[in-house]
């Protein structure tokens, strides 16, 4: 009995320093892995496939009343190719917000003047659904 407790004490004393030196690195390694896994899953889950975004943007623009659907291509420029003005463009970008479920801030929205630009912005936006 005495020998056992002495042995346990000895072991415990012996084990503790090892686990203490081991702990910081192992927990840091673990949390890093968890972080990396969550991060990569989030990245994979949240950025939409560009060709899917293109299809959805094209169909939103085709549904816009003032647009001739036959003129809508992934390379169409709102003003030059589709004859839309800045007010129309605001309406289209707002319709895209609803399609993709996130809000596009004014300074970004003002820059979107073609289907390509809309696709690039939405495909690079993690909140787009």
């Amino acid at each position, binding site marked *: 009995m005495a020998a056992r407790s002495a042995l346990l004490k000895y072991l415990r004393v012996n084990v503790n320093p090892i686990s203490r030196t081991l702990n910081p690195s192992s927990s840091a390694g673990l949390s890093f892995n968890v972080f990396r896994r969550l991060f990569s899953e989030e990245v994979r889950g949240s950025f939409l496939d560009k060709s899917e975004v293109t299809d959805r943007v094209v169909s939103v623009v085709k549904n816009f009343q003032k647009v001739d659907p036959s003129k809508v291509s992934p390379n169409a*420029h709102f*003003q*030059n190719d589709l004859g839309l*003005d*800045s*007010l129309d463009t*605001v*309406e289209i970008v*707002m319709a895209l917000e*609803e399609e993709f479920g996130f809000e596009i801030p*004014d300074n970004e*929205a*003002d820059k979107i*003047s*073609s289907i390509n*630009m809309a696709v690039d912005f939405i495909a690079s936006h993690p909140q787009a659904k």
Partner: protein
Amino acid sequence: MGSPRLSGMQKQVLSLYRGFLRAARSKSTEDRRRIESIVVAEFRRNAKEVDRKNFLYIEYLLRRGKKQLDQLRNPDTTGLSSFGLDSSRNREP
């Protein structure tokens, strides 16, 4: 890309337009549709009728629009009656 650069005033107008359309989203489907058609018609009409260089008048319209937008953002507001009544005042002063 080949779009003309927007002036500061144009950006303000577009931002106000966006604000109205956003505020309309928070209303019931029926109110939203009605508000949107008034807002779209009003901006369209002023874009056509107001002289682009009449900065004082555009600034006045912007100020008035911002006040109306604040009212519209109130959850109790369900419409934009003041727009229609104002149409006679919208001619150039």
